[in-house]
């Protein structure tokens, strides 16, 4: 490669688009540009003295799946947990910057914002299934009960709807009052998803939701994510590159607490702009 076209350090060769293609892509971008569900603006985060996130800014598009990828310790789970103020549970943690939840423009992490606001509007599913030691039914109904729903008919309806959406209904409809612990790992994870869906959250946070599941249960959950995208905005942390490529429309690559690259998933996985992203997704890291 000659000197003139050599890319600056860290950047992959610039992609030269010809004019018609650039115009076509621009038109697609304008037409399809989805509304924003949230905006991360200059977000930094500290665990006590240790800074874990550095000045991160990125959009979260509405009714789209955004994948957060990066090596262990890169800050992707830390970033995810900022959205529902989970870090507040430990003293000494500190945020800077903003996470703006649309459409009202509420700054989720502002000290004056009641953490219950994002928590009531944002659902979360963790790496390991963590059902409550209750019945299947009560697990799904829990979020609604907290919100004061007492009407049995509404609860029944919402429990069924959520279990159906989580592709679990057929397997559990005859034993709704059995313990959640009687379910298999994959079923428990789908139960946790149903529990997160029942209050109809605006934003769903998934922290490696399939890392403990077999390929079949994983496929069920990926299919579910595809369906949920019609109504929900999803942010997913995953270590599985192919999963990120399959389920997401946008991908953010983080490294050592910094956002290295954000873009449409298709581009990040076929022609990333940064060599660090390429090294990571192709298995050339470190």
């Amino acid at each position, binding site marked *: 490669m000659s000197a003139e076209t050599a890319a600056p350090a860290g950047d992959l060769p610039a992609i030269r688009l*010809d004019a018609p293609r650039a115009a076509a892509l621009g038109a697609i971008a304008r037409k399809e540009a989805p509304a924003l569900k949230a905006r991360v603006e200059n977000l930094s985060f500290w665990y006590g003295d240790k800074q874990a996130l550095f000045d991160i800014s990125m959009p979260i598009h509405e009714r789209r799946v955004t994948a957060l990828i990066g090596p262990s310790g890169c800050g992707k789970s830390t970033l995810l947990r900022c959205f529902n103020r989970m870090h507040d549970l430990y003293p000494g943690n500190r945020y800077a910057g903003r996470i703006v939840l649309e459409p009202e423009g509420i700054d989720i992490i502002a000290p004056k914002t009641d953490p219950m606001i994002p928590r009531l509007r944002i659902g979360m599913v963790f790496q390991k299934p963590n059902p409550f030691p209750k019945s299947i039914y009560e697990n799904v109904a829990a979020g609604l009960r907290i919100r004061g729903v007492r009407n049995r008919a509404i609860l029944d309806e919402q429990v069924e709807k959520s279990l159906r959406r989580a592709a679990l209904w057929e397997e559990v409809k005859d034993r709704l009052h059995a313990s959640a612990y009687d379910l298999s790992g994959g079923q428990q994870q789908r139960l946790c998803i149903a529990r997160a869906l029942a209050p109809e959250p605006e934003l769903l946070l998934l922290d490696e939701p399939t890392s403990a599941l077999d390929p079949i249960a994983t496929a069920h959950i990926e299919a579910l994510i595809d369906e949920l995208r019609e109504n929900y905005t999803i942010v997913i942390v995953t270590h599985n590159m192919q999963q990120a490529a399959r389920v997401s429309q946008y991908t953010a690559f983080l490294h050592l607490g910094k956002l290295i690259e954000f873009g449409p998933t298709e581009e990040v996985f076929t022609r990333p702009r940064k060599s660090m992203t390429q090294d990571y997704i192709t298995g050339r890291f470190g």
Partner: protein
Amino acid sequence: MPDLIRRHTVHSFDEELEHLTRQILRMGGLVEQQLATAVRALVDRDEAAAEEVIARDDQVDELEEAIDQEAIRILATRQPLAVDLRMVAMALKISNDLERMADYASNIAKRARSLLEQPALKPLVTIPRMAEVCQEMLRLVLEAYATRDPEKALVAWKRDGEVDQLYVSLFRELLTYILEDPRKTGACIDLLFVAKNLERFGDHTTNIAEKIHYIVYGNRINRMVVEES
């Protein structure tokens, strides 16, 4: 391209990609040889050389098959992304180009055989010249492929115009021969097919050049920018 040379954490993956690259280069070398022999058969009226080319076409097909299987296996087992994905996907396409190019060489050998049954026309000048440009282009793209050098690929890409021009001038020349002496029509038509095959050969060489560019940059050669420069 340091980014392409950098090794994977799993070294056996590098070995597989290198093996795939070597297979493509081997196939390219074989195609180069096929074209050279076919054109020699034509110019020297050498029947044995023509038969050799026709017989050896199977080897090219076998290599293409082997490359396909290797690439499919890498896709299935490594699930390559970004530059790796582009490399494997393009290996599939480049091997397909090379297979077509070998067919053109084989077609030329068949025409050479048919021309043996007819009186010789005047010494051939334009066809060997076309073949020479095609050979040089192919050599360039193979070097560019081995070193992942899009600039070198672009040099080859730009030379396709020469082949096209030679084709047009040969077409006119053969037309005048036919008009002068209709008994030469058969031979002229054979030569015209030879020229057409060379012209197609050149086109596939530019296809390969475009694929090398895509491997490195992830996009197509920008014709407008290139043609201005």
